[in-house]
């Protein structure tokens, strides 16, 4: 099913087979997209939302000089632009990072879901709130962490999200992104990311090679990146809070 990974292993929310069927029925078209292709441009009128079935997608904003800041990464199971349902126009571009398969859900179909099934509507809302939580974590990452912390935090987050989607075993996952992508995610230069990746490898915190990420000790990497997975609302015993990240109570 296209929607198998949607809200999979999330806390306080479970989709019944009927609800997954309803979402599947709302998908009018399945598209395959080339890597690095733009799906939505900022300012476009939008009449559908996009469920990512396979691949990795991004949301990004370019500055006046054309330099790009990635503001979100999406993994399979994410509704990439569900926030476009009420907004109808986005303030950022949406593009594929890798080859991707997406399901197109016309907003008229989402209208029908919400009218007929408010509980499923609440779960769609939950999905957008997870997006908002991730945005808060990205602000924290860029605002408070040093370069290695930013990269460590992103890799921990991606590991946890892919684990929830069934695409990481908690230590190892495919991540077909470039160091340039990591630079645009973490607000660093390519040369800086290159050095950070070397340091992570030398400290045996993480090896990222040939689009494969290996994290020997996720807890150590989480501590280095001050990563607290609570904001992801993942309901998996392996995705635990490293208590050493918590500051002592005053």
């Amino acid at each position, binding site marked *: 099913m296209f929607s198998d990974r949607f809200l999979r292993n999330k806390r306080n929310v479970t989709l019944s087979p009927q609800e997954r069927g309803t979402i599947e029925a709302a998908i009018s078209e399945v598209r395959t997209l080339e890597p690095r292709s733009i799906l939505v441009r900022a300012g476009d009128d939008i009449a559908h939302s996009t469920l990512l079935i396979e691949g990795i997608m991004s949301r990004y904003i370019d500055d006046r000089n054309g330099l790009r800041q990635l503001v979100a990464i999406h993994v399979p199971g994410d509704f990439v632009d569900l926030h476009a349902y009420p907004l109808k126009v986005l303030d950022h571009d949406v593009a594929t990072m890798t080859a991707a398969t997406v399901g197109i859900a016309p907003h008229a179909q989402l209208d029908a879901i919400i009218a007929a099934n408010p509980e499923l509507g609440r779960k769609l809302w939950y999905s957008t709130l997870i997006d908002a939580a991730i945005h808060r974590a990205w602000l924290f990452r*860029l*605002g*408070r*962490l*040093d*370069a290695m*912390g*930013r990269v460590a935090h992103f890799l921990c987050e991606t590991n946890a999200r892919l684990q929830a989607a069934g695409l990481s075993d908690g230590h190892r996952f495919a991540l077909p992104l470039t160091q340039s992508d990591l630079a645009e995610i973490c*607000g*660093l*230069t390519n*040369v*800086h990311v*290159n*050095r950070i990746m070397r340091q992570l490898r030398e400290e045996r915190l993480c090896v990222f090679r040939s689009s494969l990420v290996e994290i020997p000790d996720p807890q150590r990497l989480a501590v280095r990146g001050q990563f607290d997975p609570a904001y992801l609302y993942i309901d998996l015993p392996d995705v635990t809070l490293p208590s050493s990240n918590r500051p002592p109570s*005053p």
Partner: protein
Amino acid sequence: MTNPTEQQPRSDAGIATAEDGVVILEGPNGVAVTMTAQAASQTGASLIAAARLAERQIAANGEPEAS
């Protein structure tokens, strides 16, 4: 009384290193910037000049709080 969560001037120094013909300046407080050698030299000179001026301000007005 000082709010412990309030941003304070840092008393720990940033560390600059050279990598592949550019200068990487890291920390404190999440600073992570890559500069050309020329920009790094100019930044260094500007930092030293500003530090000397801040020292004169301290001499005149007293020490600010640092974290």
